[in-house]
């Protein structure tokens, strides 16, 4: 062991301290450290292995506050696991980066990285330098990615024939809790993307898709709304008694809860007398003053309402609140209003209805109003919950997916699963090349890498073969999770791929008695798969290069 971590003594026997808390921790360096890092990373991968694929199991996570999450999404599982080993954290980040860009494949990427490390460990035992292993992996990854390009099929993204897209979305959703209404969810995801997609620029702006969930109802009630949903209702205040009659009159209009041909004013200014930002002081000393104040406020309201009405608006969307007094005046003027609508929703409404966000009453003009064919309030079962739906908008590119479900857990998982599906469809819009799932593409890459390894004269060939073996872990895990004998199943499929040279042969997880993933429509995007391989390789290389961790904490492993 090096001088590090020991006490050093000078000529006179006076110790000088090198590492402060050396008594507490035993430090590992060099190869031993590397192996302990690999262990930690593998532990993370092992937890995820059983979640992979259509028969993968879900995990129930309970956080510190007792909040329960049920999920199958790799990135979510890892982000909720309380990981504190530095190397394990890198694995968590790995799945996060896959999630950020691709959205799907977050389990697979970690399983692959774990397999690569497991293989690396054996190579290290055989005395191969970690960096040579890393180099070999690098070469192998390059070959695998080339192979993916070769075997990729192009996929027709056609807004008029959404069936293939739906099939793809179904593959992604297949492994999730919500696969009960599999097809419906897939259609929703596809329609949402096609609505907001800019097919010319091949761009999809996710900001235009909102997901809103409400507990209650069934998952089957989930729907896509081509418009905006706001978790707010028309304001129905407690009214003073004297106005009860009028109130009812207005309620009759509102209880139809449908406004047709709405022109809405979208306001970011409050319905209240203007307040300066300058510090100010107003002394109310007499009764007159107070009365004057009240009168002023009332006049102001009336003026505001007048301004709104003059533009022809018949609905007010307001970022801020207004008090009951103002509300009463609004009702009197038959101007329904929605208050406390958040900034992002305001923006979405403006985009959808083609309106402009107006910061001051005096700037309101007819041109700045947004238009929607239909604004309705929907209420849920026996609860008093209501939401506002704005539909038939001028610009129908903003959409909302409205998710229903028996409890919060289901809704949250549905959101995550839909997110995966949305990402996959978006990726297809951006780049329409695909490869086949069910481990088919991995097997094909493994074959290619092995072939290249045979031609490689240097030491890196061992690492390349190891890489190929690691790729085969994906189909093996899929088979294992489906209750098949992993090695046997994988070997058979591999043999068939070789014989029939058909890179679409994979694991028949659903026991449909065909291994052809093309027939089963188990499709994955090329960029997603490529990303998995390159990200996993990157992180594995990084881990293989670390021979020492110094952290302030006590234990390191």
């Amino acid at each position: 062991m090096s001088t590090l971590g020991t006490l050093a003594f000078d000529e006179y026997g006076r110790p000088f301290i090198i590492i402060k808390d050396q008594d507490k921790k035993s430090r590992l360096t060099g190869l031993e450290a590397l192996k302990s890092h690999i262990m930690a990373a593998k532990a993370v991968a092992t937890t995820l292995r059983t979640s992979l694929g259509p028969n993968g199991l879900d995990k129930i996570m309970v956080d510190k506050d007792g909040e329960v999450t049920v999920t199958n999404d790799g990135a979510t599982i890892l982000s909720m696991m309380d990981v504190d080993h530095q190397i394990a954290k890198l694995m968590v980040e790995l799945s996060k980066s896959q999630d950020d860009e691709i959205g799907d494949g977050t389990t697979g990427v970690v399983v692959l990285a774990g397999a690569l490390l497991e293989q690396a460990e054996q190579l290290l035992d055989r005395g191969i330098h970690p960096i040579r292993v890393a180099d070999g992996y690098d070469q192998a990854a390059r070959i695998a990615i080339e192979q993916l390009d070769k075997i990729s099929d192009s996929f027709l993204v056609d807004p008029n024939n959404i069936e293939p897209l739906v099939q793809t979305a179904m593959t992604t959703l297949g492994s999730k809790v919500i696969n009960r209404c599999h097809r419906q969810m897939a259609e929703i995801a596809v329609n949402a993307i096609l609505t907001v997609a800019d097919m010319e620029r091949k761009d999809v702006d996710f900001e235009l898709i909102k997901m809103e969930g409400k507990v209650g109802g069934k998952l089957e009630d989930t729907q896509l709304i081509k418009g905006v949903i706001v978790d707010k209702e028309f304001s129905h205040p407690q009214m003073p008694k004297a106005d009860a009659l009028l109130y009812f009159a207005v309620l009759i209009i509102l209880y139809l809860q449908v406004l047709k041909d709405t022109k809405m004013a979208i306001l970011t200014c409050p319905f209240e007398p203007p307040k300066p930002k300058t510090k100010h002081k107003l002394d109310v000393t007499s009764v007159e003053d107070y009365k004057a104040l009240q009168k002023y406020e009332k006049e102001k309201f009336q003026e505001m309402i007048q301004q709104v009405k003059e533009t022809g608006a018949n609905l007010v969307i307001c970022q801020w609140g207004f008090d009951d007094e103002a509300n009463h005046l609004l009702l009197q003027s038959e101007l329904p209003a929605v208050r406390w609508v958040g900034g992002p929703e305001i923006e979405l409404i403006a985009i959808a209805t083609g309106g402009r966000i107006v910061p001051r009453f005096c700037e309101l003009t007819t041109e700045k109003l947004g238009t929607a064919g239909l604004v309705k309030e929907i209420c849920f079962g026996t609860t008093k919950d209501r939401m506002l739906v704005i539909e038939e908008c001028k610009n129908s590119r903003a959409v909302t997916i409205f998710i229903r479900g028996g409890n919060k857990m289901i809704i949250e998982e549905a959101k995550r699963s839909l997110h995966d599906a949305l990402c996959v469809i978006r990726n297809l819009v951006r780049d329409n090349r695909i490869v086949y799932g069910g481990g088919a593409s991995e097997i094909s890459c493994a074959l290619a890498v092995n072939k290249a390894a045979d031609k490689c004269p240097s030491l890196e060939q061992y690492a390349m073969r190891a890489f190929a073996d690691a790729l085969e872990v994906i189909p093996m895990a899929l088979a294992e999770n489906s209750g098949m004998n992993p090695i046997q199943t994988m070997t058979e499929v591999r043999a068939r791929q070789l014989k029939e040279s058909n890179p679409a042969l994979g694991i028949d997880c659903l026991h449909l008695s065909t291994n052809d993933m093309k027939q089963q429509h188990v499709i994955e995007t090329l960029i997603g798969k490529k990303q998995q391989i390159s990200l996993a390789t990157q992180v594995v290389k990084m881990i293989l290069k670390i021979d020492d961790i110094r952290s302030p904490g006590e234990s390191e492993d």
Partner: protein
Amino acid sequence: MMPTPVIVLKEGTDTSQGVPQLVSNINACQVIAEAVRTTLGPRGMDKLIVDNRGKATISNDGATILKLLDVVHPAAKTLVEIARSQDAEVGDGTTSVTLLAAEFLKQLKSYVEEGLHAQTIIRAFRTATQLAVKKIKDIAVTIKKDDREEQRKLLEKCAATALNSKLIAGQKEFFSNMVVDAVMMLDELLPLKMIGMKKVQGGALEDSQLVAGVAFKKTFSYAGFEMQPKRYENPKIALLNIELELKAEKDNAEVRVNNIQDYQAIVDAEWNILYDKLEKIYKSGAKVVLSKLPIGDVATQYFADRDLFCAGRVQEEDLKRTMMACGGSIQTSVGSLTDDVLGQCELFEEVQVGGERYNFFKGCPKAKTCTIILRGGAEQFMEETERSLHDAIMIVRRTIKNDSIVAGGGSIEMELSKYLRDYSRTIPGKQQLLIGAYAKALEVIPRQLCDNAGFDATNILNKLRAKHAQGGMWYGVDVNNEDIADNFKACVWEPAIVRIHALTAASEAACLILSVDETIKNPRSTTDGPPGPAGRGRGRPHGHPH
């Protein structure tokens, strides 16, 4: 508690003098070298260091590692200093310089223990360094500058050598190409600041891109932003340092409102201040408005309404680089937004990069700047990539200015070692021994390269000594085949300046440490000092560890 590894003197040892002090300083420096030893060369490993706030850094860069170790020992700090200065001056070779300095000291330890006077040692070392530097200059190879092709090849080779030991070594061709392109876009002064480096998590390393112009991440935006156009051709760009938000008329004043109607007046005044500014900006013809200070929701919506694009809270360096690239100047008032203070570019566009949205300014008329957008799987990965590219960029800049090169992989060190050893035989006495020690210390570089690669260092060094004695000047370690090879032919090229600087700095540091034989320290307070002697000795036999 100061949790990071630190080196402090034992409490109560407030003064210490003479030889023991020197020896203790030398030992402390060995510890520092130990911390970076395994990172040297193409088979060097990385260190993961976690700081007090829990932030993890993975690095191969000597200077970065030493900085993070938080060294407090005064003599050991000298090594940290030289690594930092090497980093600032030439950018690469920070591990080498640390190892060299520590090795010099190690070789000198026995002489110090004998009581040889420091000045004698220093004199010998200065001579040796001068000779070595002269020798490097003599044998360094200069490549013709006027031959563009040749120069470019040279630059790429040098950048690649600098990247060899880094995490991104597998992609070194890709990155050395990019780095050379980037540096070539700068003006003659090659200002480092003008290369922006941005990181977007996700993607393969090869998805990294070089943008001829400026790019920065979408800033925080308010409602209304999504309605603004995201693409302009030939837009004028207003660069501001103005807050565009509704604000109090005067900052600290408080107004007394006597009459409620006055309310309106004050409010109107406030709005007018803002609207006045906004209108002037709009009238100036600018299409893209950037401000270092926040642009609030009212302003955002005002611009959206008039089809302008705006971004507030733009980082100062981004704003400055936009200015350098697009022309114009940063305004602190809207008083004179004339055409000459507005910037311009061929294309402004908001583009999705990975999971993030980026503002791109392309086709800039004054484009003496560029931006590298890095992609990679983990935060730490990209940070290390950034540091590695920094090394490579520095090397390329150096090589453009000074195009003489030597071969790396320990070959230059072996050649110098041989030369100095030969020289030392011609002089008598202590000086001979000392220069011999210097020569021996130089071998630390090839030795460590071998150790890190898992080779039998003794064997390789013997081969190298033999080869250099026969005139194989550029023979060094071949890390791929556990052998020696002509590293000049193998294109392991480094700018001569890196080696010159490293040698000079390392020998100066060694001399400095030797010339200080007394340290006076205030006893540290008990909270951050080590525990007292009673808890420390632990009944171990006192003596020298090695």
